[in-house]
């Protein structure tokens, strides 16, 4: 692998994209959908949607830019974010005029855009997914949503996604083959029955959509031909002709070579994100489904490895072009408007005898290298780890981690596969799972939406309610009142605190499922994903969309935020209030109410931080408290099912999940002071990681702590992010040791996921300024390691200077 190379035009393309600070918006989709919906109001919603997609694909602006090898644009301008009015127009109407000024997540909106949006939004009022959800919510559900203890905005204002479709199938049969299958099933369907009539609408819609996609790909072929005719550079002219040929061919036929196969996979990925704006649309195991094309082309010499890398990089940059606009509130939970388009490599496959073997192949290496060279935020690159993963490949992953863009992340076959099999996933499917979105996992092409990503629950606020008569500290509302509070000092024992937590969290667990049920029922009726359903088993066979129960498997998970804060808060209360009696219940309540304001409260806060055990330090006295508290929620969830239960899929239930991305920041912003010493409005802990700066014993202790959570019941993902100083990967010996660290975490602790961020110069500067948030940062030299925050300012400066040098 040569990680320090990037072709010039890829460099230029990347630079053009990352320098777009306030991307435009694109109103074409919104306008086309409005036109088509209005013209077809007599038809079932699913057919309206098919015709709307057809109209949009027929009329939208297409372009080929940046000398790209893989073509297909999502919107009329580069990185422009399309508008999806059928999900919501509320926030769009409210925010469209100020979008450009939004801090950190601004969009450039022209006067024409504003007029176009204001012209269509009146039609959608009362008809959107979000509006119809609110038409179904009870007052209590609405109040809870308004409090933001439970958040489901992302589920109502966009599609679901969080899945990978069946790329194997589309590459094998092509769009033409898919269309033929639908026609055949449609012909065999009996429309003399109510069920048959319903299926007929689905089949008809799939036919419309697949034909429209074929036509759309031909538009790109035509465009490439036209451009070739006027292209002056002979090399590029040849490429454009090839692109045209690729598109003409794959419009109907299965691909013949790697370039065409990658192009077709990209078109699938693109259309899924034009059909719906759900994020975390993932490729699945790209190194497996594209390998036969790659190897054949390399072997026959029609493709050089260098050209293949450039094609992959061109594809990755197309992923980076895809954009999504979220409301101001929601964009904080998804910092940097990421789309989490995951590419998963490595892992295992079953051989002819049904035995597992390492699935790493030549394309796994190429994908890893292409991402290491490009260092982009898309795709989200995941490597499936297993015990027998090739050590050279693992070391290559460490080399890419060393590049400092936080990838690849690892998922662990050693827990995912056996747990999936225990759940009821067929063995062959379990071995074929892929990472979806950020860290969650599902079987590509066979699993419904949102293996994670249902509604979010703020565990820290639930705990605060448990500690104070059920009153939410932020809004003052009591959703499930009780008579115990720290302020009154009437918790007789720590056990009663745990009891109170259990009652509150069970209540909110139920409410979150109630809310999911409303949202799911509206999405099922109002926002069918037609193309997506056509590429998920067994939708075509059953004549059902994914949301109607078309998928072979359908487990989902919500997300719980503030895991470490929950554990640390419980431990602080147990240790300082009940075990040591250093602190009265009322004193703690007062300090929390005052947000630790004033010197005495600050002393108290420091004791909560420094004199009570913290999750992440391999200390049972906190880790087991957290595991037990979390278990209450996990057990409660097992009582519920989703709206597809009993309608076809295997599963139909819920499990827990912690892959809450950057939601810990806005969730923290709405959370008052917590007993772990966290001030009001500051971020909560991320995923299942320790609270920032609280893990002081290094990574092995963190793994031991995380290993105490019931990862087998948190199948929505146990997210662990770790900071590493550049020195931790400086030499071959260091890298080798990191690989051993990863192996132990996965083989022995059955860790779910881990991702490493190499500490940057900026982080070190921040740590020098605000040491309290970076107490875990270790710097190492031979025979010596020290906490960065404990160094003298001079030594800190020296390390900062060296870090700059190394990166």
């Amino acid at each position, binding site marked *: 692998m040569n990680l320090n190379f990037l072709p010039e035009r890829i460099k230029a393309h990347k630079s053009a994209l990352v320098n777009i600070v306030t991307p435009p918006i694109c109103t074409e989709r919104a306008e086309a959908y409005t036109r088509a919906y209005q013209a077809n109001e007599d038809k079932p919603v699913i057919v309206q949607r098919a015709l709307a997609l057809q109209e949009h694909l027929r009329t939208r602006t297409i372009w080929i830019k940046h000398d790209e090898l893989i073509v297909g644009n999502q919107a009329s301008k580069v990185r422009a974010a399309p508008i999806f009015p059928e999900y919501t127009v509320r926030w769009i109407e409210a925010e469209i005029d100020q979008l450009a000024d939004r801090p950190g997540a601004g969009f450039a909106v022209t006067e024409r855009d504003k007029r176009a949006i204001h012209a269509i939004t009146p039609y959608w009022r009362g008809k959107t997914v979000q509006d119809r959800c609110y038409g179904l919510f009870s007052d209590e559900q609405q109040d809870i949503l308004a409090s933001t203890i439970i958040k489901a905005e992302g589920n109502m204002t966009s599609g679901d996604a969080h899945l990978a479709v069946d790329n194997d199938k589309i590459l094998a049969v092509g769009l033409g083959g898919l269309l033929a299958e639908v026609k055949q099933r449609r012909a065999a369907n009996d429309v003399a029955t109510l069920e048959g009539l319903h299926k007929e609408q689905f089949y008809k819609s799939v036919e419309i959509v697949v034909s429209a996609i074929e036509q759309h790909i031909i538009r790109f072929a035509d465009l490439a031909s036209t451009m070739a005719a006027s292209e002056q550079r002979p090399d590029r002219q040849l490429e454009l002709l090839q692109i045209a040929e690729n598109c003409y061919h794959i419009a109907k036929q299965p691909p013949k070579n790697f370039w065409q196969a990658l192009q077709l996979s990209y078109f699938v990925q693109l259309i899924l994100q034009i059909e719906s704006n759900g994020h975390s649309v993932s490729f699945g195991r790209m190194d497996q489904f594209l390998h036969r094309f790659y190897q054949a082309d390399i072997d026959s010499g029609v493709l050089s490895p260098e050209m293949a890398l450039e094609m992959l990089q061109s594809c990755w940059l197309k992923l980076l072009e895809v954009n999504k606009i979220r409301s101001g509130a929601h964009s904080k939970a998804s910092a940097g408007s990421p789309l989490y388009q995951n590419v998963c490599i490595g892992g295992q496959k079953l051989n002819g005898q049904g035995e597992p073997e390492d699935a790493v192949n030549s394309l796994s290496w190429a994908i890893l290298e292409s991402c290491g060279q490009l260092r982009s935020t898309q795709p989200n690159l995941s490597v499936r780890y297993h015990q027998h993963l090739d050590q050279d490949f693992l070391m290559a992953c460490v080399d890419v981690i060393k590049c400092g863009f936080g990838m690849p992340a690892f998922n662990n076959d050693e827990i995912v596969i056996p747990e999936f099999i225990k759940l009821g996933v067929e063995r062959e499917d379990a071995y074929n799972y892929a990472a979806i979105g950020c860290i969650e996992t599902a079987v590509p092409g066979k699993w419904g939406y949102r293996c994670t990503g249902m509604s979010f629950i703020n565990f820290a606020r639930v705990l605060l309610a448990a500690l104070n008569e059920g009153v939410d500290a932020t809004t003052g509302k009591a959703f499930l009142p009780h008579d115990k509070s720290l302020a009154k000092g009437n918790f007789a024992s720590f056990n009663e605190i745990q009891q109170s937590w259990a009652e509150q969290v069970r209540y909110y667990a139920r409410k979150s499922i109630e809310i999911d049920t409303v949202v799911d029922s509206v999405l099922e009726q109002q926002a069918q994903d037609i193309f997506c359903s056509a590429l998920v088993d067994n939708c075509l066979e059953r004549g059902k969309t994914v949301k109607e129960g078309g998928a072979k498997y359908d487990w989902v998970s919500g997300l719980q935020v503030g895991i470490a804060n929950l554990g640390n808060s419980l431990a602080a209360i147990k240790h300082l209030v009940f075990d040591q009696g250093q602190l009265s219940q009322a004193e703690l309540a007062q300090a929390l109410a005052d947000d630790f304001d004033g*010197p005495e409260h*600050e*002393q*108290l*806060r*420091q*004791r909560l931080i*420094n*004199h009570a055990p913290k999750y992440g330090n*391999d200390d049972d006295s906190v880790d087991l408290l957290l595991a037990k508290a979390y278990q209450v929620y996990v057990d409660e969830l097992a009582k519920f099912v989703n709206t597809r239960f009993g309608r076809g899929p295997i599963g139909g239930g819920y499990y827990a999940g912690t892959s809450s991305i950057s939601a810990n920041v806005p969730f923290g912003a709405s959370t008052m002071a917590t007993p772990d010493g966290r001030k009001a409005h500051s971020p909560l802990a991320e995923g299942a990681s320790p609270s920032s700066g609280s893990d002081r*014993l*290094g*990574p*092995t*202790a963190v793994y*031991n702590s995380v290993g105490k959570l019931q990862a087998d019941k948190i199948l929505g993902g146990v997210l662990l992010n770790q900071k590493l100083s550049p020195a*931790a990967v400086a*030499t071959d*010996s*260091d890298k080798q*040791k990191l690989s*051993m*660290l990863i*192996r*132990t975490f996965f*083989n*022995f*602790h059955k860790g779910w996921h881990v991702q490493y961020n190499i500490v940057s110069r900026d982080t070190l500067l921040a740590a020098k300024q605000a*040491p309290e948030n970076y107490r875990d940062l270790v*710097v*190492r*030299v*031979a*025979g*010596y*390691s*020290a906490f960065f925050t*404990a*160094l*003298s300012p*001079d*030594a800190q400066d*020296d390390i900062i200077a060296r870090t700059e040098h190394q990166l």
Partner: protein
Amino acid sequence: MYFNIQRFSTHDGDGIRTMLFLKGCSLSCAWCQNPESQSPKYSLLYDQRSCLDECQMCAAACSHIQRQSEQLCIERSMIDQQQLIALQQVCPTEALSVCGQPADADELLAELLRDKPFYQQSGGGVTFSGGEPLLQPQLVTDLAQRLQQQSVSSAVETCMHVPWKNIELVAPHIDCWLADLKHTDAAKFNLWAHGSIDRIKQNFARLAAIAKRLVVRVPVVPGFNDSIEELRSIIDFAESLSNCHELHLLPYHTLGINKYRLLDQPYECADKPLNKPELLQDAQAYAHSNTHLDVVIRG
């Protein structure tokens, strides 16, 4: 007594290791980056940067500490060991901390075994360091023996400035010796490290005969031994030892300087890290041409 347990140590022996730092040392090297390890008793560290204004908790707990506006006035010489014990867990921010824990072999063993899966996967184990761990030979022997029973390998980092019987006692249970040879000249060594180099050399000669694996470690310190002649002499000595094949050159660093401030002790060594890469390379080249030693820079 010990003062730290450091997990995921990667530069002090093979694989992933946990280090147990024992308190008390028989030398006092001018460049020592763990000055809190030198005393065998409790030590008091104070970091003004995280001291809370207006906080009186330590002053309330100890009559020899007073708050004077933003600064604490600590009469260190007046504070006895009992008072230090009373100061543990008093400071809310740990700006004032008491360094040192009485060693309980059972508890320590349990801690040291926590990362056993990592040792097994990586070929790592436990490293005893300090201070000078061999000043507590019974504790080290006891722990190393019990670790051995659990198939966990032990290494020792030692200055070798201890009675031979201490070394002899622990040797059967130690798989790897990371033993310092800081200089070969008696006068210069005594001036900078306050000890006898002859005693160290004698111990080396005897240890070489029985050690399972012996690695000579050389901190390369500005003004003390950062000349090629001095390094050659050290390398020659290492080469003269039977059964010694490895030597690590550890360039001087300053990560521990702040600890002197925290201990309110003067620091008299260089304030910048050693920046002589060519010297280290020359020494490596010398060893390569003239000895059988494998010389590693940074270890």
